[in-house]
Each structure stands twice: as structure tokens, then as C-alpha cells.
């Protein structure tokens, strides 16, 4: 009979765990529980059951999405580190590398918008500096329900303040991202944060517990009962009738994170290889970080839980291992350096305690009050049983195709004005003004352009970054929608003059056990993969958020693409704004009547429907290469990609904040100016470069018209003309979100 430590006296015994089936509430299935019993040849105790539930959750193990993720192409000449670490790493020359990853915090943000979003930023930033990199930028991809709902306003205000307060405090600029509104996200907002870091390649660290006898150093904040079982909480869908999950949300402390970030980077600089491995304590906190680090190195780990710094009293081993208290990291440090490393952290008023060691036995062993409370094979703990998810083509995709949506617009000018005020199209300045975008003094293109540009001091290099996906397209055709998401992100990067170099993703979907949802996941990822390979942009990191549904209604499949580009010569940085009167306006690509899934369709019919045409990946790539070459040869002086709202919105955005207007003419119907055809750019060219540009572009570009010295926007089609004063258009565009928020 073993002695039961005082704090654990009220815990169910292994037999009671089995009888009560408490693990079912933690999203561990009966089959999985029985497999564990069989593997251990005994009943797991309460703590061990909790460890398995966390480690085998979708959030930690990706057991359901793995068959899809494994197919992602993640290797090319730039890749230093692909998926599986805190973040992916790409070589950018001069022994420097760019480190980036995106992560979702949808579920926490739905129940507690401010803290949910804030801790999302905190977590992704730790993923970056755990690699030894200095975080240099944050982007946020947000999806909300319709803005006129009060709940949307409440969510938006909370989420935006959470992101702002956390990122601003850290002194990491929020430079971009995207925001869209659609009823599909009414109960399930999407909060995806992407962070980008700059690394000297010599400083690269990964999360591996190498070296038998090396010490496990806990640094950062103390552990409390925050977010116990947050990982499994994120892996189950919502039932809107209950609100009891509220206690699973963590609270962030950006001040502490700032100290932790600066001190971790400093420690890596000072101690180099004596710090063997670093990992954030993210989802499922201590268990996930320690088991993964041991597992990746093929070693065991032995922790003394009484050493874990604690903020509250009477924490049980279960709580200590599963807590998701924020701002904590785990380091593996050579034994003879552990005291010095710890001292650096305690000097910054951070906890730093040696809590255990790397062992040769391959076991995951935990001691508490002198009693062994867990003893499991590490590899078994981190390897959930393989899952074979069924796929089925969603009924909507096999049903008789909806008739092609053909807009019949009697007053194209009025429609244009309405489109500019649509929440998804309108300016997001009212949101972005809350984010500090200029701290660190490196932001060359601020929010509002196609992609953000962040320069690298003491070099000529600039990094471009963006996030994008239109869930409506993915809903109408998962594969093409996936291709379009990558293509659109790449066009954003290209329009600044930068070459796309890599991708991170956040795959936001419904319940993966629904074969139709799994089909959406698999097909959209296939599409992402195809376009990524075509553009030579490997997918080097990412995250999956499933169960985004309420009462059985899933969100549109929303695989958000975060993309980074590299511009070697800062002098070629290109913005979207018109530069001079009389510059020639060219359309690169061909406008087609692509209205299915468009903002126009949504505006006119209140919903989206129909088929998407297939995307020609070669043409997409050629158009991007043309823009890059045109910018490099200094023939193109402004460039903007065509997205929601079509060429009309693109032209308007190019004119805004300039003293110019434009006069363009096309041989298609005026309504086609709103078509959302793929692979399109609008660029401007000085008249003296007309011959050179046309020689370069050949048939890919069409002269649309010119930039004018007055501020009229005049877009003529074969039937009607869109005519509006730029100031009027800009007012509609800029005030829409603000007006709706204040209503």
C-alpha cells in the first residue's frame, strides 16, 4: 500500500477513474482508455489518465489532422527547420533566418475575448523566441459574424483590445493581418495570431531534451490552476446552452512575458550550446512541453513536482502537469551551467528552478511528495493511436449546381458605393489604430497595404508578410479555395516587390469526425499544397483548430495562410498608392464574370452559392513573376492585387490617400469591375516606360487608362460607367466600420 500525498487524498483511485469514466469528459475515448490499460498492464491513476487525455487530444497530438498535415510540402533550399518545432525557420542569407508560425485561439476568445486573444498573442510570441529568435512582428487574422450584431461588437472590442494590450506592451509591432465578417462566424469567431522573428542562425535552438543527465529548468511565471484542460477544451465543440467552460481560460501578463522574452534571448546569446533545448509551455503546459522534448530526443525524463514554482497552495500533480498558466518555458540545460542560467532569470525577477533531469530509460516519471505518481513510456505517451477519418463529398457540392450568378445592376455607381461600405471590404483602420505598428522603427509598409514590410536593420533586406483566406471560396470548392488562399497571399507579397518564400497556416474547421468536414480539410489542404509547390513556398509551420461549430453548425472551412516574402533591395519597396498624374494603369490578367462567392453576390443576394472555376496555377505564377520583374526593373511604380470587390475596389484603394483619381475603360460590362477573378493585379507605369513595360508584359497586361490629376474615379464598361468622387468613396470606405461599431 503506497502512501497517498495529502494534496491527492480526494482524487479518485484508478478503479474509481475507470468506474466513473471521468476521462470521457476529457475527450479520451473508451477505446483509447482501454488501450492504455492494456499497454500499462494496470489501470492508469488519475494523474496518468489526465496526461494521456491531454497528450492524445487533437490540440496536442493532431491525431486526426495528421494524415492531412503529413502531405504538406515542407522542404526546399531555404528550409532550416520545418514543421514540428515551436516555429519554422527559413534561410534569408547573411547567416540570418526568418522564423514564423501562426496559432489559433478561437475557443478561448469565444468565451473570454480579451484574455483569449491576449494569451493567443503571448503563446505565439513564445514559440518564436523559444527558437532563439527576436520577435519582430505580429499579424492577426480575425473572422467575425455580421457586425450589426451586438455580440459581434462585444467580441471584436474584446479581442482587438486583448491583442493590442498584449502586443503593444511587449513592444512588438502588429503590422498586418486581415479581418472578415460573415454570419458563419457568428458563434465561432476566429482569432489566429502569426508572429515573425529574426534569427542569427548560430542562435537556433529547438525543443529537444538531449543529453542524459542534463537538467530541466523551469523559467517564467509560477503555476496556478489556470486553464486546466484547455487543450481538451479546444478539442470539443460548443454547446451554446452551457457556459461552464469559462474557468478554462488563462490570464496573460504581458509585462512578465516581456521580461521572459528579453531574458531568454539574452540567455541563448550568453550560454549558446549549454542551453540544449527550449520549449514554450503552451497547450497542456508542463506535460506537453516535457514529454515532447524527451520524445524528440528519444530519451526519458524525471521530474520532481514539488520543485515546480507554485502560485497557489495544494496544487495536485494533475493540476501541476495540466495547468496552462501563461508565460512559462522549459529549458534543458547542461548540469554545470544550470545555476548560472537560473541566476540570469532570477535577476529579472522570474522564477527559475531545476525541476528534474533527462534520463536514459525512455520513461516519463513524475515524483510528488516522495511518491512516484506517473511512470509511462515517453514514446507511448506522445503517440496516440492512428485515426482514419472518413471523408465524404459534402452534399452541397454534389447537388445539382446552382445556376451561375449573373448580376443585373441598374446603377453600378450605387452598387460600388454599397460595396465600399461592406464590412469585409471597408477600411480596417478603426481596428488597426489600436495596434502599435511602428515600435522597433522598422515598419516600412504599415497596415492598409497589400502586405506589411519590415526592414532588417543594417542590411538592404526587407521582409514582407501577410495573412489571407476567403472562407467563402473554400466553402464553394475546398480544393480551389485552398489554391486561391495561397495565391492571394502570394499576390499580396508580390505587390510590395517581395518574393514569397514560405507559408505557415492555421486550419480552422468544424468537427473532423463529420466526414464532410474532413473532406473539406483534406481537399483544401491539397489545394494549398499544390499552389505552395508551384510558388516554391514550403509550408514550414502551422496549427489546426477543429470543432469550430456550435449546435452542429460548422464555420466555413477557413484555412488561413500566413505568408512571408523577402525583398533583397529596400529601394524596390512598392506601395499600392497612385504616384503621379498621367501614369498609365494596367490590368495584369483577364477579368471574367467570376461572381460566385463574391462580395457582390453576398451584397445582392444575401448569401453565396455556385461553382468556382478552376485556377490555372501556371498563369497565377506568371502574373506574379511579371509584377516582380516590373518592380525590379523599376517600370512599375505602384501595384495592388485584385481581391474582394474586384478591380473597382482595387482602383479605389490605389487612389485613396492620394490627390489623384483615375479614368479607365474596358470592353466588358461595368458589373465585371466587381468580379473576383483570380490572378489579377492592377499596376501603374510612368508614360516614358510604356514601351519597356509592354515589351515585358506582352499579352499579359492590358492598358486600362490613366491616373488623373482630379479626384474623380471613372470606370467605364461596355454598358455603364461607375462615377464617383474619390473623397466620397473614401469616406464610405473609411467610416463604415467605425459607424457600425458605434451604433
Amino acid at each position: 500500500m503506497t502512501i497517498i500525498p495529502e494534496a491527492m487524498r480526494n482524487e479518485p483511485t484508478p478503479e474509481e477513474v475507470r468506474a466513473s469514466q471521468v476521462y470521457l469528459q476529457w475527450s479520451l475515448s473508451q477505446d483509447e482508455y482501454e488501450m492504455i490499460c492494456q499497454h500499462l498492464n494496470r489501470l492508469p491513476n488519475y494523474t496518468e489518465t489526465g496526461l494521456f487525455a491531454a497528450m492524445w487530444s487533437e490540440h496536442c497530438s493532431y491525431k486526426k489532422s495528421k494524415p492531412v498535415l503529413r502531405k504538406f510540402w515542407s522542404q526546399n533550399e531555404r528550409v532550416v527547420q520545418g514543421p514540428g518545432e515551436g516555429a519554422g525557420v527559413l534561410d534569408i542569407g547573411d547567416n540570418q533566418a526568418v522564423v514564423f508560425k501562426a496559432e489559433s485561439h478561437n475557443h478561448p476568445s469565444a468565451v473570454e475575448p480579451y484574455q483569449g486573444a491576449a494569451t493567443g498573442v503571448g503563446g505565439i510570441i513564445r514559440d518564436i523566441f523559444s527558437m532563439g529568435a527576436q520577435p519582430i512582428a505580429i499579424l492577426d487574422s480575425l473572422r467575425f459574424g455580421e457586425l450589426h450584431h451586438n455580440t459581434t461588437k462585444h467580441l471584436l472590442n474584446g479581442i482587438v483590445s486583448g491583442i493590442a494590450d498584449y502586443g503593444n506592451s511587449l513592444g512588438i509591432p502588429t503590422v498586418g493581418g486581415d479581418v472578415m465578417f460573415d454570419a458563419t462566424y457568428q458563434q465561432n469567431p476566429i482569432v489566429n495570431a502569426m508572429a515573425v522573428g529574426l534569427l542569427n542562425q548560430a542562435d537556433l535552438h529547438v525543443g529537444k531534451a538531449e543529453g542524459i543527465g542534463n537538467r530541466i529548468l523551469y523559467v517564467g511565471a509560477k503555476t496556478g490552476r489556470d486553464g486546466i484542460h484547455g487543450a481538451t477544451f479546444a478539442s470539443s465543440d460548443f454547446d451554446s446552452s452551457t457556459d461552464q467552460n469559462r474557468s478554462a481560460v488563462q490570464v496573460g501578463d504581458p509585462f512578465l512575458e516581456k521580461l521572459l522574452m528579453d531574458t531568454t534571448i539574452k540567455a541563448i546569446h550568453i550560454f549558446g550550446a549549454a542551453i540544449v533545448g527550449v520549449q514554450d509551455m503552451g497547450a497542456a503546459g508542463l506535460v506537453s512541453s516535457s514529454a515532447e522534448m524527451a520524445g524528440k530526443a528519444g530519451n526519458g525524463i524525471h521530474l520532481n513536482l514539488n520543485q515546480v514554482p507554485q502560485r497557489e497552495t495544494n496544487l495536485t500533480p494533475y493540476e501541476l502537469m495540466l495547468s496552462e498558466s501563461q508565460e512559462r518555458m522549459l529549458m534543458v540545460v547542461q548540469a554545470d551551467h544550470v545555476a548560472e542560467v537560473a541566476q540570469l532569470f532570477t535577476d529579472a525577477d522570474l522564477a527559475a528552478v531545476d525541476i528534474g533531469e533527462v534520463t536514459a530509460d525512455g520513461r516519463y516519471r513524475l515524483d510528488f511528495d516522495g511518491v512516484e505518481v506517473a511512470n509511462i513510456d515517453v514514446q507511448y505517451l506522445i503517440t496516440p493511436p492512428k485515426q482514419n477519418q472518413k471523408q465524404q463529398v459534402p452534399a452541397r457540392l454534389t447537388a445539382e449546381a446552382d445556376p451561375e450568378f449573373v448580376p443585373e445592376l441598374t446603377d453600378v455607381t450605387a452598387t460600388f458605393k454599397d460595396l465600399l461600405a461592406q464590412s469585409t471590404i471597408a477600411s480596417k483602420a478603426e481596428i488597426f489604430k489600436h495596434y502599435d505598428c511602428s515600435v522597433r522603427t522598422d515598419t516600412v509598409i504599415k497596415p492598409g497595404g497589400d502586405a506589411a514590410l519590415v526592414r532588417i536593420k543594417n542590411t538592404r533586406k526587407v521582409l514582407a508578410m501577410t495573412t489571407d483566406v476567403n472562407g467563402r471560396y473554400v466553402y464553394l470548392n475546398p480544393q480551389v479555395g485552398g489554391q486561391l488562399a495561397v495565391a492571394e497571399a502570394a499576390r499580396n507579397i508580390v505587390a510590395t516587390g517581395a518574393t514569397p518564400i514560405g507559408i505557415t497556416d492555421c486550419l480552422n474547421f468544424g468537427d473532423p469526425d463529420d466526414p464532410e468536414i474532413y473532406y473539406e480539410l483534406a481537399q483544401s489542404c491539397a489545394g494549398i499544397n499544390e499552389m505552395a509547390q508551384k510558388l516554391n513556398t514550403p509550408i514550414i509551420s502551422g496549427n489546426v483548430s477543429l470543432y469550430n461549430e456550435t449546435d452542429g453548425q460548422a464555420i466555413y472551412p477557413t484555412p488561413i495562410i500566413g505568408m512571408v516574402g523577402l525583398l533583397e533591395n529596400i529601394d524596390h519597396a512598392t506601395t499600392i498608392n497612385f504616384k503621379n498624374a498621367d501614369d498609365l494603369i494596367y490590368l495584369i490578367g483577364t477579368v471574367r464574370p467570376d461572381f460566385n462567392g463574391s462580395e457582390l453576390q453576398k451584397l445582392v443576394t444575401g448569401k453565396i452559392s455556385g461553382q468556382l472555376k478552376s485556377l490555372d496555377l501556371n498563369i497565377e505564377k506568371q502574373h506574379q513573376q511579371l509584377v516582380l520583374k516590373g518592380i525590379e526593373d523599376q517600370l512599375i511604380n505602384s501595384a495592388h492585387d485584385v481581391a474582394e470587390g474586384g478591380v473597382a475596389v482595387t482602383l479605389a484603394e490605389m487612389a485613396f490617400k492620394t490627390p489623384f483619381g483615375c479614368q479607365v475603360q474596358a470592353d466588358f460590362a461595368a458589373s465585371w469591375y466587381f468580379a473576383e477573378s483570380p490572378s489579377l493585379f492592377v499596376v501603374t507605369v510612368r508614360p516614358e516606360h510604356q514601351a519597356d513595360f509592354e515589351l515585358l508584359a506582352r499579352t499579359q497586361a492590358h492598358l486600362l487608362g490613366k491616373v488623373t490629376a482630379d479626384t474623380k474615379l471613372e470606370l467605364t464598361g461596355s454598358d455603364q460607367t461607375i462615377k464617383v468622387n474619390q473623397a466620397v468613396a473614401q469616406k464610405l470606405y473609411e467610416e463604415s466600420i467605425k459607424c457600425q461599431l458605434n451604433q
Partner: protein
Amino acid sequence: MKAAVIQFPGSNCDLDMLNALQLFGVEAQIVSHKATSLAGYDAIFLPGGFSFGDYLRCGAIARFSPIMTAVTTAAAAGKLIVGVCNGFQILTEAGLLPGQLMMNETPGFICAEVPITVINQQSQFTNQYQQATITLPVAHGEGRYYADEATIAQLEANHQVIFRYQTNVNGSAEQIAGIVNEKGNVLGMMPHPERAVEAIIGNIDGQDFFRSILN
């Protein structure tokens, strides 16, 4: 000129200030908030950020940092002291400048480039400005300058108001964006001149600020 940039826990514009000073050839160094001496420095910069998380009130905790005794001594000795954003908040909490910075009139952090009038072009911080209207970045949630009427009247009468917002950015009394002490050697301002010294990041209106200090 030799300048110190004080680093408080939570400062996050310290390196930006250091960079800006170095661009103008100033021999600038980061000095820890735990240091006790500022001997040998001609100018002392308290940078922006969120010292001590801005917990309690912005600047309220930083005011008790060991370095603040040396800052007070340097101020009394006539050295140049500059507090930008959080630095301004610390200087008011420490009593080196009158008034207080409070939450913006419309709650929420604002990041923008705003038009500003250089009210006093004679000060040690502004004497190189040729034009009265400039644009500077602001980035704060608590930048609303507040002081009682008598204090405001005194600031105006002594020409201690150095910068004024041209639009109502945050609800500051008399749209005050920056002030000096009576002696004119201690400046506090909410806008960030250190973010406006390089054309590539879109604004050079902070250059004359640094030229004035060097003059």
C-alpha cells in the same frame, strides 16, 4: 554629447531611442534602472514602453527605481532630461514635471501619425525647427494631459508648452502634447520623435528634435 537611455523593466522604446541618438552621432548607452549614478552624461532619456507593466498607474512604480534619484539630481544640475511617452508619464509621477497623463478620452490605445504644432521654437529641444507644423507618431493608451487650471495657466504664461496637437487626439487639456519644466531643461512629450528620423520608415519630422538637442 554623451547620453543615457534608461531601461526600466517593461521599457520597449529604449533601443529605438538608442538607435536614433546614434544616427545623430551621439555617444549613447543603455543604463539600467537599478543604476544609481548618471555622472558623465549630458543628456538623459526616459524611453517609451510599459515600465513595470504600467500596473497601478503608468510611471507610478518606475518613479521609485534607484536611478530616479540620479535623474532628479541631474535635472537639478541643469542636464537635459527627455521623457517620451512612458518616460513623460514617469517624469510627471516623479514630480519633475507638473500634471499627469491619464487614459485617453476615448478609451483604447491609439497608434497614428498626427499633426503637431511646435509652440515654442526657442527651447533646447526645438530650436532647429524651421516650420511650426510637423507630423509625429503617437502610440499610447494613456496620453491625456491633465493639470488643474492654475498649473495650465502657469505653463502657458511661462511658455512651457512646447508641442500641441492640432486635432483632439486624446482629450489633453489645451491639446498639450509636450511641456518643459520652469528651467526649461526637462521635457516630457507623448509623441515619438525617435520613430521619425528615417525616410524609409516614412517620417523625418523628428530629425530637428535631435538636431536641437545637439545644438
